[in-house]
């Protein structure tokens, strides 16, 4: 701690930070542009000037950039000093000379850092009367819009895109008054995190192009805290709505999870909510007409629920919905709708996590690793935000030198100069090249079984007690020793693995390495990527997979099969799914979009998507996080799955709930029933939580048009919808002060309209939110002793001439079904292909682009060849879960025939 004097008032602040951070943490309003809490300082924009004094006697002082000044004891500075104030207002005046002042047509207007800073410094009158310099804008793809004239040259975009996220195709050109930020030529931005440019840019140079389609100012959005649904990491987001349409996703800061950034799939994958393919009415196929009202539906359902009812839960439905289904059908009739192998892998992951042999890192903690080993995951495509964390982690080792020569951690320019291209150790074992390979000190392009064997060999090297790997391939032992040595030396090693390659042995091997690395305080971190947003939560319910053979025998032929938010046809072969569906007399599907499974259903019930429902999800680290309904859909049929299912339970039992069922009630019951969920009820606040007797508003207090926007439908202004389920209100009325962190509907503070206002919600800049970061970590219950994962070393991979090993290759855009329905993401998704190596291509006598017939268990696909020279022999990569390639039972083998 250090005592600093700001305008002669002493404050106690944390030493080691820079003065700007300290001032902002103390609540002072100091303008800045180039500094970013996650990216540090470079002192480029000259906007955060303050007067610094030698001691309390010094009256003259000197101007310094507060972002470049280390906090130290007895530091005297002045923010209010007239020279400093004049300097700041002059700086913004010349930054603004070429700014087009087109706020009225700019998408950033109303959430613009430049607007805020201009107002803050008092630059209200333009004196520059000359011609402004103008630029041509570029086409940067369907997701990001470019408007270069608005640029104020803060360099944040390239610092984020190139330095922080490792992008290669955005750069800065020219000098002086002609600086240009863009690509060399028009084209789609290649980086997975390009959407963050819209938030990093302090003005409207880079903006969200999907928002343009249905433009709404920040103050006009109804917003709610939400959780991204498009991978297992559980990034926190804010979802905004107007006129009954979801319009924008922005990052919601959570210091433990996503921090300041989310990936493009999460930001732009929301459009399925507004899809025309939504199920709008309950449908009874045998009824004429099919669409029915609620009464008819319930009358029809009542007899169906009394027989033998089987429920199939979903890895993309909330804990509440899955639990409500389990309550409806009973524990023994509840199955999980995931492929058998996935269920097996999830079981292994749970047992590893429950032993307590490893440390389960949050995403923030993965950023602190010094050596990283990635076994069988292409992070940029399967869990992109984690790839960004790994990118930061490899800098930790070289940055450590900085401490010894007194370079503070925030001094970005000096650190980059010091580190240059130095990297800490990072090893990647994956069948094909991944984007992170450029960071890696060792890359191993081997088949899934060999990846597992390499893992076991490392574990054996680290802990000779672990079983040795028989029949190791030539140099594999050497690699294992190299990696093992590096991991052993590491202070904070991180093992990343996951389910992408559909190989349970890889997860076991990764767990064996982590366990072998250390115990107690020296426990190694094991991060596991799982398939869907609530895969972990569903797995924790311990329900067997519906595709499991023992499960199938218990199912028999039920009267009714209820399928919750799940397209079964996408997870396994059509024949297998049809067989299961055919057993049941009645099939009820609850989902938000029409899909092959709902097409087979006898009864279809429409449900709300994440923006129309409340719920809790468990992410890959076992963090339970709540998401909240953003708006009340105009269509009353779009209700939460758990509400429908609770109604069905009441319908069957002939009971009525005295009170409205709230998500919190369901989670509490869940935690009571299943102790592994203890604590999850803390993640979802009770519905009667009030702050100063008030609810928390979903709308900013400047929300406009309330008496006009729905007047075309009903001029008599109905009462605004009430929310009995959560402490949030659907209007602007409510508590305006600091909300509890999980309930931050939007970030706003007087004078801070942009997302930069988040620092007003943090205990210290870049730190945790007031009241702690949202989310509750489960897995506190340790069952030590079970080390069955130590066994199961697969035999050596032998290329099979006939039977090719199929490898599912995930793609950021395309591999996740819901996000692929967004227009921009669909445009950027790859076309189906089959990837083989050059030798195999030669033996098959095919070239890049020629058509191969791929036959997997009797199903034939005609796919163009893509040559990936690094692929192991006799393995073939298929883009995972593309719309055209769903319904493959993984892991898969198949034949390749020249077509």
């Amino acid at each position, binding site marked *: 701690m250090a005592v600093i004097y700001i305008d002669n008032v002493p404050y106690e602040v944390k030493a080691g930070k820079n003065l700007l951070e300290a001032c902002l943490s103390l609540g002072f309003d100091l303008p800045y542009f180039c500094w970013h809490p996650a990216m540090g300082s470079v002192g480029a924009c000259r906007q955060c000037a303050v007067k610094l004094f030698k001691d309390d006697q010094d009256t003259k002082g000197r101007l310094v950039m507060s972002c470049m000044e280390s906090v130290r004891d007895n530091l005297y500075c002045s923010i209010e000093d007239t020279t400093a104030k004049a300097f700041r207002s002059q700086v913004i005046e010349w930054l603004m000379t070429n700014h087009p002042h*087109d*706020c*009225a*047509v700019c998408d950033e*207007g*109303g959430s613009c850092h430049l607007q805020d800073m201009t107002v803050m410094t008092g630059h209200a009158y333009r004196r520059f009367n000359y011609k402004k310099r103008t630029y041509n804008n570029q086409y940067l793809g369907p997701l990001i819009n470019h408007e270069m004239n608005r640029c104020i040259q803060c360099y944040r975009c390239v610092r984020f895109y190139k330095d922080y996220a490792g992008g290669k195709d955005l750069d800065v050109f020219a000098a002086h008054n002609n600086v240009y930020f863009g690509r060399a030529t028009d084209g789609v931005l290649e980086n997975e995190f390009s959407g963050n440019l819209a938030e990093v840019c302090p003005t409207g140079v880079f903006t969200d192009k999907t928002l*343009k389609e249905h*433009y*709404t*100012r920040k*103050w*006009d959005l109804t917003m709610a805290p939400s959780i991204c649904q498009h991978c297992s990491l559980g990034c926190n987001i804010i979802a905004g709505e107007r*006129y009954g349409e979801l319009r924008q996703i922005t990052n919601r800061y959570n210091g433990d999870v996503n921090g300041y950034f989310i990936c493009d799939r999460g930001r732009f994958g929301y459009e399925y909510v507004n899809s025309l393919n939504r199920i709008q009415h309950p449908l009874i196929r045998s009824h004429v007409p099919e669409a029915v009202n609620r009464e008819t539906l319930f009358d029809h359902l009542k007899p169906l629920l009394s027989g033998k009812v089987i429920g199939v839960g979903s890895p993309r439905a909330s804990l509440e919905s899955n639990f409500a289904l389990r309550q409806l059908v009973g524990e023994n009739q509840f199955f999980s709708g995931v492929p058998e192998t996935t269920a097996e892998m999830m079981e292994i992951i749970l047992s590893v996590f429950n032993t307590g042999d490893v440390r389960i890192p949050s995403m923030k903690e993965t950023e602190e690793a010094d050596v990283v080993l990635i076994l069988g995951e292409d992070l940029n495509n399967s869990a992109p935000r984690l790839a960004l964390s790994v990118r930061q982690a490899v800098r930790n080792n070289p940055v450590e030198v900085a401490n010894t020569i007194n370079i503070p951690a925030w001094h970005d320019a000096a650190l980059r100069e010091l580190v240059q291209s130095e990297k800490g150790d990072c090893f990647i074992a994956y069948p094909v090249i991944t984007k992170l390979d450029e960071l890696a000190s060792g890359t191993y392009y081997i088949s899934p079984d060999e990846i597992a064997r390499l893992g076991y060999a490392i574990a054996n090297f680290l802990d000779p007690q672990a079983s040795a790997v028989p029949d190791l391939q030539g140099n594999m032992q050497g690699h294992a020793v190299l990696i093992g040595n590096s991991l052993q030396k590491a202070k904070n090693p991180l093992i990343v693995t996951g389910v992408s390659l559909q190989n349970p042995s890889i997860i076991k091997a990764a767990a064996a390495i982590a366990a072998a690395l250390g115990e107690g305080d020296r426990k190694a971190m094991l991060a596991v990527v799982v398939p869907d947003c609530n895969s972990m939560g569903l797995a924790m319910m311990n329900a067997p997979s519906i595709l499991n053979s023992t499960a199938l025998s218990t199912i028999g032929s039920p009267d009714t099969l209820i399928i919750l938010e799940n397209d079964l046809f996408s997870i396994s072969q059509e024949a297998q799914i049809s067989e299961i569906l055919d057993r049941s007399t009645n099939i009820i599907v609850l989902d938000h979009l029409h899909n092959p499974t709902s097409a087979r259903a006898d009864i279809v019930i429409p449900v709300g998507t994440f923006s129309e429902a409340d719920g809790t999800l468990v992410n890959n680290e076992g963090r339970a996080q709540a998401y909240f309904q953003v708006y009340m859909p105009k269509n009353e049929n779009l209700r939460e799955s758990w509400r429908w299912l609770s109604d069905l339970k009441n319908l069957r039992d002939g009971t009525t709930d005295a009170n409205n069922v709230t998500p919190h009630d369901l989670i509490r019951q869940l935690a009571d029933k299943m102790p592994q969920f203890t604590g999850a009820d803390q993640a979802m606040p009770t519905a009667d939580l009030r702050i100063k007797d008030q609810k928390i508003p979903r709308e900013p207090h*400047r*929300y*406009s*048009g*309330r*008496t*006009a*926007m729905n*007047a*075309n439908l009903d*001029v*008599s202004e109905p009462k605004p919808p009430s929310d009995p389920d959560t402490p949030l209100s659907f209007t602007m009325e409510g508590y305006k002060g600091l909300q509890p962190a999980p309930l931050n509907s939007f970030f706003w503070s007087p004078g801070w309209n942009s997302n930069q206002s988040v620092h007003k919600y943090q205990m210290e800049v870049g730190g945790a939110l007031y009241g702690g970061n949202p989310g509750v970590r489960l897995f506190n219950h340790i069952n030590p002793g079970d080390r069955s994962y130590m066994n199961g070393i697969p035999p050596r991979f032998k290329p099979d001439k006939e039977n090719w090993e199929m490898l599912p290759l995930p793609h950021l855009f395309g591999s996740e079904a819901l996000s692929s329905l967004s227009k921009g993401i669909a445009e950027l998704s790859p076309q189906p292909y089959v990837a083989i190596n050059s030798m195999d291509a030669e033996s098959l006598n095919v070239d890049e682009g020629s058509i191969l017939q791929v036959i997997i268990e009797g199903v034939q696909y005609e796919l163009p060849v893509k040559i990936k020279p690094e692929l192991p022999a006799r393995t073939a990569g298929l883009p995972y879960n593309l719309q055209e390639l769903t319904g493959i039972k993984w892991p898969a083998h198949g034949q390749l025939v020249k077509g």
Partner: protein
Amino acid sequence: MESLSNRKKVLEQKPMNFWERLYLPAIFQGMAITFKHMFKKKETIFYPEVEREFSENWRGMHSLKRDEQGRERCTACGLCALSCPAEAITMIAAERQKGEEHLYREEKYAAVYEINMLRCIFCGLCEEACPKEAIYLDGPIVPANYLRKDFIYGKDKLVEDPINIESPVAGN
């Protein structure tokens, strides 16, 4: 009790005298005033044949202006809606497409612009907030109507007629 305001006036109620009870002088006095008004200037205006002259700062019905080339000035920035204390303005913004440059002045425009005239209090804050000089409350009195829904004024009623641009209003 002492009066609180010190302005209390005690009225005397003494019985009327003979002349007063006759009432005739008071009647004549009253009739004189009545007849005097017959020769004075009329205060009433025979609306709708005659319309009252509005003062310069009169605020009537809104109109969405066009520029000198006949393009809509409004860019749907939302500041009028933001400033509206009755929250009676709503709009949907749209991007100007290629080939529409003669219709809209800037790259955004209001695809839908609606004012709920039942809610509007004619305070003029929208006019004040507009950075594009696109909205003025310079129209006539908003006419009465039978149906509530007819008080929702869309662009069809609000946007200035393109003809106006040929002969700019004198005195503007």
